[in-house]
């Protein structure tokens, strides 16, 4: 199912089958060049597959943007242990809802991507870890897997290539932290979803103590196109250090929110105005979150001339993240936005390390109180100070994810905090259109 009208400005690579009748079925998939990338890869050497992915400049779509080809090359090929492919479909980052449509509309594309990764690293089994709340996706995915088995696209000696591969789905139980790769692996193994100490990294010691390739759904979904049409073609869609397209989840105060596939490096202004149909009620832009609630927030001025790609975002000290764009108009209360974001992280902190566990709870308390006009001038600095001292000090990046937006909001919208000191009710309209946390 599609949840929004497609935009003519999209570059449809991963979403090319969206909207076709029975787009999730194997028949539709095979009729539209399905599994061609896999068949091509089956005739290549593993190093050649990885080289192709490197050429494509595909970077991880889960948030960190780590080059996928490089990650695959870290798997020790000579290791006698079995190797695993794990798909991160835990999609829980506020503002992000792209993996869900990818699975819903084209599950075979994901299966093919996993198979290609399996060929590249010599893995013969894979797991799709699906967010607990996405229960209905498991059915879709399981059905596609059953169809693939029935038609020889999974199982022993796939389509006569001599390659064996088994694929399973696994459901989470509703924890954001289980999207973090090592916590995901713990959860997959049936343990508490808490992060692991690193090193070692999953590529070397991952699922069940074996080398593991763990990527986001969108990352795997890009692999079929890369193998089918060549890495160079994929790279050409994007910018120099990041190839292809990016699934953008355009949310917040825009007229046409939705999931759009835009080429890497798409201008932010054009995205808001043309793809998203402009800001509601003709209001002005106040703040912009480019990639899910964990990214530092940008002001309207900072969005001038900005493009949607990793390096451009890094230059503005924020991140492309998962592509979960949150647009906030001039009536948004930034204190409330900070509070909402912190509520989420305090709720989702796993409780392992002190700065995150205690820090997020304390920040939540202070921000709630502040928004209710119970704050003091000193609290503003206190919030910033705590968040800054959490950043880079926590066990896993969840603590950073909580700290980054907070620091940026306090620094860039300090005046709004000061306005809350007057003791009167919040001077802004509610930020309720913003992602509900």
């Amino acid at each position: 199912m599609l949840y929004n009208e497609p935009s003519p400005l999209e570059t449809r690579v991963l979403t090319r089958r969206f909207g076709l009748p029975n787009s999730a079925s194997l028949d539709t998939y095979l009729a539209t060049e399905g599994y061609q990338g896999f068949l091509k890869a089956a005739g290549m050497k593993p190093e050649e597959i990885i080289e192709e992915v490197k050429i494509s400049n595909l970077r991880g779509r889960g948030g960190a943007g780590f080059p996928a080809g490089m990650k695959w090359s870290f798997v020790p090929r000579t290791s006698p242990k079995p190797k695993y492919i794990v798909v991160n479909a835990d999609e829980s980052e506020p503002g992000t809802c792209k993996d869900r449509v990818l699975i819903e509309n084209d599950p075979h594309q994901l299966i093919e991507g996993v198979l290609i990764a399996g060929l590249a690293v010599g893995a013969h089994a894979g797991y799709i870890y699906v967010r607990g709340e996405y229960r209905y996706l498991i059915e879709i995915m399981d059905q596609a897997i059953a169809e693939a088995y029935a038609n020889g696209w999974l199982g022993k000696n796939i389509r006569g290539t001599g390659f064996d591969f088994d694929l399973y789905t696994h459901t989470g139980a509703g924890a954001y932290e289980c999207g973090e790769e090592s916590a995901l692996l713990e959860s997959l193994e049936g343990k508490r979803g808490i992060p692991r100490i690193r090193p070692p990294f999953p590529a070397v010691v991952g699922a069940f103590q074996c080398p593991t390739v763990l990527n986001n759904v969108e990352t795997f979904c890009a692999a079929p196109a890369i193998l089918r049409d060549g890495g160079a073609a994929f790279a050409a869609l994007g910018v120099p250090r990041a190839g292809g397209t990016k699934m953008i989840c355009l949310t917040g105060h825009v007229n046409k929110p939705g999931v759009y596939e835009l080429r890497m490096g798409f201008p932010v202004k054009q995205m808001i105005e043309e793809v998203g149909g402009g800001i509601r009620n003709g209001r002005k832009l106040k703040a912009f979150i480019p990639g899910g609630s964990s990214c530092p927030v940008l002001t309207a001025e900072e969005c001038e001339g900005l493009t949607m790609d990793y390096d451009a975002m890094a230059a503005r000290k924020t991140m492309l993240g998962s592509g979960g764009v949150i647009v906030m108009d001039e009536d948004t209360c930034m204190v409330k936005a900070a509070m909402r974001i912190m509520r989420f992280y305090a709720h989702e902190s796993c409780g392992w390390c002190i700065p995150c566990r205690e820090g997020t709870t304390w920040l939540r308390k202070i921000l709630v109180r502040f928004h209710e006009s119970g704050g003091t001038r000193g609290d503003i600095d206190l919030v910033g100070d705590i968040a800054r001292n959490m950043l880079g000090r926590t066990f896993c990046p969840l603590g950073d994810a909580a700290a980054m937006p907070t620091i940026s909001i306090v620094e860039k919208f300090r005046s709004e905090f000061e306005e809350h000191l007057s003791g009167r009710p919040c001077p802004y309209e509610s930020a309720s259109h913003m992602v509900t946390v």
Partner: protein
Amino acid sequence: MIRLTIDGKTTEVERGTTLLHAARFLDIKIPTLCYHPLIKPFAACRLCVVEVKRSWGMELVPSCHVACQEGMEVSTGSSHVLAARRLVLELMLARWPNVPILRKYAAELGLEKPRFASPLRDEREDACILCGLCVRACDEVVGASAISFAERGIGRRVATPFNLESESCIACGACALVCPTSYIKFEAEDHRGKPPEFLLDPNTAIYMPTAQAVPKVPSIDRDSCIHFQTGGCQKCVEVCEPGAVNHKMVDEEIEVEVGQVLVAIGYDTFDPTPMAQYAYGRLDNVYTGLEVERMLNSTGPTGGRVLLKNGKPPRAVGIVHCVGSRDENYHRYCSRVCCMYALKFAHVVKERSGAEIYNFYIDMRAFGKGYEEFYSRVLNEGANVIRGKVAEVVQAGWSKQKEGALLLRCEDTLIGRFREIPVDMVILCNAIEPRRDAEQVGRLFGLSRSPDGFFLERHPKLDPVATMTDGIFVAGCAQGPKDIPDVVAQACAAAARMMATISKGEVEIDPVRAEVMEEYCSGCRVCSALCPYSAISYVAERKVSQVNSALCKGCGTCVAACPSGAMTGYGFTDRQINAELEGVLAV
């Protein structure tokens, strides 16, 4: 080896060394909360952070977990490091303001009061600070996994599964040992509520049996060693550099052929718990004689000092003689040694603690050489001896000042008055009894026991160390209560008897014995069950019984019992007797 620089000091360490260890080699202090040398790093508290120079800038890393790398430049006291540590402690103090270890670290960082109070403020000094050491010790070291963290985020707490008593808990106390705040308390007490230091069992799972043990090596107590319960732990193996710890060692059964045996299995002491009036196990500071011996021992738990459970010396001590001895309800006999060791206690306790001493006796049995003189000496030292059986030991009162004080009630038969004497320690001179397995041992060696349960000697005056079974001798308290000089004398006598037989090289036996006529024996084994000296065995190959002529005493029980007439007295078959009669009558 890896070279790195910490705070400007260059050092070399082995590959794999953590930054924390490297800093400790250089005497650089780094605070830690969730680190323990015997548990894998956890990196959760983030107190141990240090700053490391990377190609992309300075990075804060937890030193307890990050390994040293060639050429690393580390700073342990930069402003970033201190700020991060301060925040950790501030967050913790905001929640647990009174936990000593947090206050100590906070003071070291110049942090006085947190800028906020946590919504979950817990004022206790022994609050759980969620360091996770207990959980990891239970999982990694013990292997029991009886506790873990429940709930997530700020709700995190240490719990057993479903908050119920955990069946996997083996009560090893490892969690309490590692807990930095004493939130988990583990008070090892035996079933009578005694603190472990006064038990005669080892205090730890690996221990030196005694200070003078030969060979002087520690041994492992299987009952308390975690490894024998869960298969985990083995931390002793990790820390023992020469690799001398061996958990696989098993008891060996050795068979030794001997011709004579001296049974000297000693005694047990009477458990005074059933004598409820003496409050043993019910009130603190009521001890048995053997427990006090342990306390007085200079290698014992208190180093030989006389101490109350609260660690203070006693002001008055009551010593009760004849506990369970000379008592119709328990043992009628006199345990012989108690009066004298009670006087010894009076002397030693007074000397070491200056306490007032009260001995309660029925009669004073100073039976041996020099003993009466010792009694006079103790009297001269100022011990109070009261003739009268103690009726009961009770708590002196419920007020705060009287806490722990005990009251001894008795009748002083010399002045004909009922008396109540306040003390703070009571020593019960409990009876000596036969060892609990004396019956089994007796059966093993064919020994009889007197009505009191001690082994019976062949003749109390004429043969006091031999028994009715040849080659089996008794000595010591196994034969009856006695003190060490008597034990030694008896044991020497028994040894001499045994040596005499050995030096002779042969044994003389009576010609009177039984014998089996195999052709008549049906192998029914009626005889072997009856023989009081275990002299008859069954030869399975020939299906007949056989008499060991060295063991047979010629009592004739078997001869009378044999249903087929196969058992006869040697040289006394019916035919022989008839022939003899005929011979006599033929004259």
